[in-house]
């Protein structure tokens, strides 16, 4: 993964994550942000690692995988353009839940969670603005995961 910061303000201003967020906060968060590119097949993070970053996917696609010894990993979800990735940074013990592997060349913005957590602790209004953007994502993923559990395409009666 390679990182750089130029053009970030433009990219962040356009990203839906910042829709309706006061510019001051966007600039503040930008202080914790960097651009990154991940090649197809490379991992962005691994299960169990400290969740000290989260990501805004700009373009590309990432699979969230569960590693199973002696088998191919199971893909439980895929995330694409404009989606948020890795909300584990919000809640102790701040550990990543899955392996995140790029399925194609993926451009991301990485956000330094340690830096942002400190800023959110200092300014709960910023904290609330960030939580308000994560809570719907977490809720939507939970609902989607529960729908997957219904196995709706399974054979009738099975």
């Amino acid at each position, binding site marked *: 993964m390679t990182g750089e910061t130029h053009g970030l303000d433009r990219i962040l201003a356009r990203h839906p994550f910042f829709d309706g967020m006061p510019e001051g906060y966007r600039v503040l968060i930008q202080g914790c942000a960097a651009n990154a590119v991940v090649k197809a097949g490379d991992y962005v993070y691994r299960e169990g690692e400290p969740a000290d970053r989260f990501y805004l996917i700009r373009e590309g*696609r990432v*699979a969230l*995988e569960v590693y199973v010894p002696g*088998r*191919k*990993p*199971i*893909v*439980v*979800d*895929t995330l*694409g*353009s404009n989606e948020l990735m890795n909300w584990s940074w919000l809640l102790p013990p701040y550990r990543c839940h899955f392996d995140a*592997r790029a*399925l*194609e060349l993926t451009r991301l913005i990485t956000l330094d969670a340690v830096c942002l957590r400190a800023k959110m602790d200092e300014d709960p209004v910023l904290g609330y603005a960030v939580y308000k953007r994560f809570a719907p994502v977490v809720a939507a993923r939970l609902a*989607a995961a529960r*729908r*997957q559990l*219904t*196995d*709706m*395409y*399974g*054979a*009738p*009666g099975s």
Partner: protein
Amino acid sequence: MRMAPADAATAAARPMPEPRQETAPAARTPDLMAPRPFTVERVTRDVSDTFTLELRPLEGPPLAFQPGQFTMLYLFGVGEVAISVSGDPDRPERLVQTIRAVGPVTRAMTALKPGAVVGVRGPFGRPWPCAEIEGRDVVVVAGGVGLAPLRPAILHVLARRGQYGKVALLCGARTPKDILFRRDLRRWGGRLDTSVAVTVDRASAGWHGQVGVVTKLIGHAPFDPEEAAALVCGPEIMIRYTVQALNDRGVSLDRIYVSMERNMKCAVGFCGHCQFGGSFVCRDGPVFRFDRIADRFAVREL
């Protein structure tokens, strides 16, 4: 579910049509109850439990049909089941039907070989409103074997591509092995004027496509929700979630069409077996405009 108001302010404020009535009235016409013999010309295994039959009438004209219509397919000595036509409506010489083996009759049909003879009644039911939605963006959402009844509508639209706006096909399947009509999907996806997205509920790391419920595709699909008409077919839970997601994106319920399944016997509005609220699926469906049946989706066990 939010009931989006009919889109009165948009350019496309014309009232949305209901699927046309295609079936002749009830069982007054005796030949609607008499199966015609068809020969099996070809059998293709699509996915593990699903196969496609290509049939030709022993005599008489081919079976012309509208996309979304179904036949009653009779396996002599075993029984009769409702199966949608999955072939090209512009090429009716062969009757193409895609069957998932789920019970006694459909499982017995897996033994059919070229040369075998089956009985066919139909076609029956109200079709997808392909002509009526000309001028609109078209979103097709298919779950599992639900792609089979939609295939004729897709072929109809793509053969008249200029008559429609954006076309998006969104397909969900259980696993990558269960994706129906892969060759078609690849061909349609290769067209520059059509967007195809496929997602599966579960996969292992060899799969490079999307994983997640089919409703996830709706948020990103390229279509204008104010101008689109949606055609939806799949398991009933999938229909429910899909209609909700389409409606959340701004597609009003009167522009969403769904194909429903109920057990059938006569298929001509006579026996009442296929009752669904105040309608018979064989006569008033299987394609319904969703706003007409939305209340029934709120009621359990209809």
